[in-house]
């Protein structure tokens, strides 16, 4: 009897679904917009609301609803099956990625664009293990994220049963916090805490491991706590006013100050405050890789990225400065390789929400712990009369010189008739200039990332994403997918090399299946370019294990996924191909032929 009614319901849903689908296809097929005809659930719960008792899995889903979660990225399996069963009863959309690692990257991309913690749900053992690289990548860049992992039944835990792994123990060193849910009644509290922990202070991923039996247990009462009571966790919110005044005093004394912004400015939502402060007093700004797009590329006060892959004029500006304000940056090895040497003779102000970052790599004269938006807001309220125009003029000179040299190089590349490949710098420059002003540019890892950092033109409202801390190849495509879901209507373009692309190219399927109109560029040089470059420079062309060959053939590959394919072989026609590629409303891929000898 019950089965009968369930089948009936199922049929009803199917017919309803069809009509809905047709409507959506007409109304939403606008270029540049997401045209959702998200495949909808085929099954509904056969038990009516009245009879049904709430299970742990229902409670989890309810928690996600309370947190306003729109998407769950993941991959089901037996240990997380109760959760995926319960989620059908809600409006939360699920995205089935093709490998768990990509679920984490997609959630990361979603988080970074929407500002809301992305949610991932995968099964126990291998499902969770596949997630680790994604979690570590998010941790290295302080991206808030909630990772729900199924676990074997509580009474089996510790007995090495099928698909059992000590997930919580294994991720300990690269999550902000992790939980194992042992009691179903803890679910609301744990989820409330997890979202709070992930998205406050120094943000980061939180993992919740839930045994399958706990998901199935009934919970008699569901109350989502309003407040979080954590005696051990009180993130610093406001910067100390005494320290803030000290910084202002130092700025009054300084002749050549500079602000170096990192990913913390994005994470703290302090972009506008930082820009306003820089503009108000004419203080030049440089950035780390994670701080790209805090300032538009053409801002007169912006002097590029620093570090061993940065702009020479950016590094010169840092070297010449007498006061450096590091804001939301770790003073990590790639941006400042010898911190003590680089900071000698300068006054360093280090602003970070995480007290442990301050003094970790170098000792600042003025440590300033707190929420970066609050600190810059307070900076903006302080009286300060300074004039750094001489310093700016000096930097301008340097930048103009550098940019002229670069423009000349690009011009020569564009006009060179003998070239049988595309100049990657010229390509990135042309692509990013042709993109919408508020577009999201996602760079993978490798030479493509360095070309992107050095040449991408990011405008007001635009955003640059990459895996900066961990440098995880294969990040770009799934992150772009998540970013597109986080910002419907915004253009999202990812740029990969052919190595990184192949690490996550299976997500073309998810992109196509869910009709997420991302753009994917593959800079094809048939080798692991950055490793090859390293072997060229350090091992004197003793090339080892870097040859990728010509596989897969991207034209055939995209055909298999029904993804539109574009190809660019030489600099000729670069603008036309890029324009056509960007204009295409469907998910599409562009293969760009690059010379393997090209250095980044």
């Amino acid at each position, binding site marked *: 009897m019950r089965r009968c009614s369930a089948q009936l319901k199922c049929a009803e849903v199917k017919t309803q679904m069809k009509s809905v689908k047709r409507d959506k296809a007409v109304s939403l097929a606008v270029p540049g917009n997401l045209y959702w005809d998200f495949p909808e659930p085929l099954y509904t719960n056969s038990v009516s609301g009245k009879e049904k008792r709430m299970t742990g899995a229902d409670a989890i889903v309810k928690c996600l609803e309370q947190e306003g979660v729109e998407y769950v990225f993941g991959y089901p399996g037996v240990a997380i099956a109760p959760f995926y069963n319960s989620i059908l009863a809600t409006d939360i959309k699920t995205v089935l990625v093709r490998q768990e690692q990509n679920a984490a990257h997609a959630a990361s991309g979603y988080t970074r664009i929407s500002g809301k913690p992305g949610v991932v749900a995968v099964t126990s053992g291998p499902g969770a293990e596949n997630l680790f690289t994604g979690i570590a990548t998010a941790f290295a860049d302080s991206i808030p994220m909630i990772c729900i992992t199924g676990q074997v039944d509580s009474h089996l835990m510790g007995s090495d049963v099928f698909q059992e792994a000590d997930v919580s123990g294994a991720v300990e060193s690269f999550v902000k916090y992790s939980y194992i849910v042992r009691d179903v009644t803890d679910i609301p509290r744990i989820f409330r805490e997890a979202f709070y922990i992930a998205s406050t202070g120094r943000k980061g991923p939180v993992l919740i491991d839930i045994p399958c039996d706990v998901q199935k247990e009934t919970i008699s009462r569901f109350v989502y706590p309003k407040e979080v009571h954590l005696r*051990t966790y009180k993130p610093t919110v406001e910067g100390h006013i005494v320290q803030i005044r000290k910084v202002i005093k130092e700025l009054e004394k300084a002749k050549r100050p500079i602000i170096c912004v990192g990913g913390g400015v994005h994470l703290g939502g302090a972009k506008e405050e930082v820009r306003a402060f820089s503009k108000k007093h004419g203080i030049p700004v440089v950035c780390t890789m994670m701080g790209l797009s805090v300032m538009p590329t053409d801002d007169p006060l912006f002097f590029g990225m620093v570090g061993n892959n940065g702009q020479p004029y950016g590094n010169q500006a840092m070297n010449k400065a007498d006061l450096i304000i590091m804001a939301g940056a770790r003073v990590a090895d790639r941006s400042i390789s010898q911190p003590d040497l680089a900071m000698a003779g300068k006054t360093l102000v280090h602003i970070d929400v995480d*007290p442990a970052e301050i003094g*970790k790599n170098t000792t600042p004269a003025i440590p300033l712990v707190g929420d970066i938006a609050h600190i810059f807001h307070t900076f903006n309220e302080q009286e300060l009369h300074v004039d750094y125009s001489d310093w700016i003029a000096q930097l301008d000179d340097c930048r103009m010189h550098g940019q002229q040299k670069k423009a000349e190089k690009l011009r020569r590349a564009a006009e060179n008739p003998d070239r049988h490949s595309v100049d990657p710098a010229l390509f990135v420059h042309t692509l990013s200039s042709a993109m919408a002003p508020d577009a999201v540019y996602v760079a993978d890892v490798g030479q493509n990332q360095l070309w992107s950092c050095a040449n991408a033109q990011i405008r007001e409202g635009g955003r640059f994403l990459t895996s900066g801390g961990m440098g995880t190849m294969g990040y770009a495509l799934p992150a772009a997918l998540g970013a597109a879901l986080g910002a419907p209507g915004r253009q999202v373009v990812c740029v990969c090399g052919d190595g990184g692309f192949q690490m996550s190219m299976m997500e073309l399927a998810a992109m196509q299946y869910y009709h997420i109109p991302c753009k994917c560029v593959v800079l094809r040089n048939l080798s692991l370019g950055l490793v090859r470059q390293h072997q060229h420079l350090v091992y004197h062309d003793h090339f080892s294990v870097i040859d990728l060959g010509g596989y897969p053939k991207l034209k055939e590959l995209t055909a298999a996924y029904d993804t539109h394919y574009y190809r660019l072989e030489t600099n000729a026609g670069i603008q036309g191909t890029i324009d056509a590629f960007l204009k295409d409303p469907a998910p599409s891929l562009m293969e760009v032929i690059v010379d393997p000898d090209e250095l980044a």
Partner: protein
Amino acid sequence: MKKIYSVLVENRAGVLCKVAGLFWRRCYNIDSLAVGETDDHTVSHMIIVSSGDSGTLEQVEKQLNKKLDVIKVKTFTEDQAVSRELMLIKVHYNRNNRRDIMENCSIMGAQIIDMSKSLMTIQICDTPERVSMFLDTFKTISIVEITRTGTLAVPKCKDGQA
């Protein structure tokens, strides 16, 4: 340089592992670690002795504070604290060395707490240095087993201080 960390943590499963894992992951030294419950059964007290340069020791404190299961961290040097360690040592004895062992025990204030025809177990509770010193006196004696608690320490009493 040596430092003592008095760390109050949540008394939950896995917390010891998380704290010890932090030392392992960041290459900090653990010279000694002792854990026990406090008067509040939801709180455990860890006494960790670590050594390194001053920058590292400062990072240890910051990283400990960052752990979400850590309630409070206090740090002090050895001379700012009174510290004790308990050692149990089981040795073989015979007619020739029995008297020596007993004399050593009485000099150092150790007690013989268990004994059979050929074995005895001695307990000493003293500062870590004196415990080590006591142990040195057993060089010529056949030791069966040794167990030490690790250092326990509290800051020295000062009036007007909590």
